[in-house]
């Protein structure tokens, strides 16, 4: 099977799911990596080190900024001339769009969020979550090539082999843009929820610390948010010691305690960490669905009957404001940090 892997990056910073896709593709045979951008030799070099045999490099100033139309047209043109059977992508904001458009150009379609890919001759059977991971489906595509985006952390990341190289073939870009990029406001992004091995999440309970005295002059809502922010500091400190990401329940997000980008479950993210620590989260059905792929769940909650304990391996019935700092200290000591 002739397999291509699209390496997704932002200004040269590669989305780690790209390497997971490359590792999966290697299990099917030789792999061609696709690197688009401007001044992206370093990305091509990394692609070899993560296992690519060949890199098709489209290096053009018109591709400096990601725009759906130029990237999709470039991919469609390249695919028409090279005729791969399969193109794998990490699932990111960019790949969903460019794969969607390119597949449409080529009378194919995209299967997103794959958690398993079985090869069956020149075809594949893909397992993916639906209904916020309350169910899974197996799907096949009659399109050629097949476009599959893989879910983050569903496949192992290959070892980097420093110094490994291969053949780079340069390919022309399509530059038919329909939009203009005016700039960026790049957030200070910690570990992303999708890529996190450890997630520590806070729920509505993070604002319930009665021992805190909010600064004067805040109204009730402001005081509640201030309390919640102190609570999320404790969540963040534990996450930081464990090298993990900070998550939140919908209740915490809706109450304005923390941005939407941190939300796990319903209309938020479906995550797959090795360890998920839920603090002050009762465990609504959507939240539980969102963490179904977590290898291990630890719950800290005052309410011994909270549904979160039904999916947890370990639980502490207690006050998160006391337990979280104690846990942070214990890990600092034991992990030598």
């Amino acid at each position, binding site marked *: 099977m002739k397999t291509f892997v699209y390496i997704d990056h932002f200004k040269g910073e590669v989305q780690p799911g790209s390497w997971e896709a490359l590792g999966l593709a290697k299990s099917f045979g030789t792999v061609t990596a696709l690197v688009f951008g401007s001044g992206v030799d370093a990305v091509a070099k990394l692609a070899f080190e993560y296992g690519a045999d060949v890199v098709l490099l489209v290096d053009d100033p018109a591709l400096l900024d990601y725009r759906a139309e130029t990237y999709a047209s470039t991919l469609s043109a390249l695919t028409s001339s090279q005729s791969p059977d399969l193109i794998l992508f990490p699932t990111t904001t960019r790949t969903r769009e460019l794969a*969607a458009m390119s597949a449409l150009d080529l009378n194919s379609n995209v299967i997103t*969020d794959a958690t398993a890919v079985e090869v069956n001759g020149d075809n594949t059977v893909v397992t993916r979550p639906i209904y916020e991971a309350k169910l899974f489906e197996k799907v096949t595509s009659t399109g050629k090539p097949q476009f599959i985006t893989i879910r983050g952390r569903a496949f192992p990341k290959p070892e980097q082999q420093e110094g490994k190289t291969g053949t780079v073939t340069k390919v022309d870009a399509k530059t038919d843009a*329909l939009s203009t990029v005016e700039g960026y406001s790049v957030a200070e992004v910690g570990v992303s929820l999708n890529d996190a091995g450890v997630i520590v999440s806070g729920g509505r309970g993070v604002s319930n610390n009665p021992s805190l005295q909010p600064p004067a002059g805040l109204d009730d809502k402001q005081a509640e948010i201030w309390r919640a922010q102190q609570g999320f500091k404790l969540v963040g400190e534990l996450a930081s010691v464990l090298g993990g990401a900070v998550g939140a329940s919908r209740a915490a997000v809706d109450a304005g305690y923390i941005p939407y980008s941190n939300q796990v479950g319903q*209309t938020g993210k479906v995550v797959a960490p090795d*360890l998920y620590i839920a603090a002050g989260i009762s465990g609504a059905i959507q939240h539980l669905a969102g963490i179904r792929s977590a290898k291990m769940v630890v719950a800290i909650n005052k309410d011994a009957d909270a549904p979160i304990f039904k999916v947890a391996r*370990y639980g*502490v019935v*207690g006050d998160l404001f006391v*337990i979280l700092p104690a846990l942070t200290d214990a890990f600092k000591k034991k992990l030598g940090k």
Partner: protein
Amino acid sequence: MKIIACIKQVPDSEAKVRAEGGKVSWGDAPLVINPFDEYAVEGALQQKEATSGTVTALCIGPESAKEALKHALAMGADDAILVSDPALNELDNVGAARVLAAAIQKLGGVDMVIFGRQTLDSGSGLTPAQTARTLGWPMLGLAGQIKVEDGNVRVERVIEEGRQIVKAKTPVVISVVQSIGEPRYPSFMGIRKASKAEIPIWSLSDLGISTPTPIVTRTELMNPPARDTNVEIITGEGPAEIAEKLADKIIAEKVL
């Protein structure tokens, strides 16, 4: 501006969704407007207010999907159209994009089409970009903010790394994320208006297109594997001891 909000009807997210006999079952849970699409309607209404425009809610689905359209009307959409045809029972996202594009072209004079970022059921989030591609219009995906000036639409796209600010000329297709703003509640007047609304139904022959053949098809539907649910509650003399024990257990599980 003439604005279209594309919506879908899905089982309520509180529903206990199960695979039963190869079919998706959601018990007696209600069907509702896809929660992400409430943000699309909200975004559309914001632009209607900013530009003295109109909002048409557009949905593909069975007759019962009129209820989702009525929700959009109650929120403040001016009118609604349901595309419904027995031939559309097996529809993948490419098919949905072709049907929506045909409906948008039939409506004519559209300046802006707004989607939610994905649906709760399939969750693939492909249809907005495929609709844009079918129409040949710019795709401004995952907008957290929309501004219109002199026929130019400027959006802030919420991406993994922060925000990308992108500008394009109308007509455009936009998908929105939650930062667009909390969806407004239907007003009393809105609900009354919606309950009386006559929602036209368009068939494939009204749209002048043939039945799209699905490219991606489901071969199997599965419930997720059951989780080992034996929780071990850690107790001890005070938080330090509990934390100590819990940290040891977690380290021993090799999940760090």
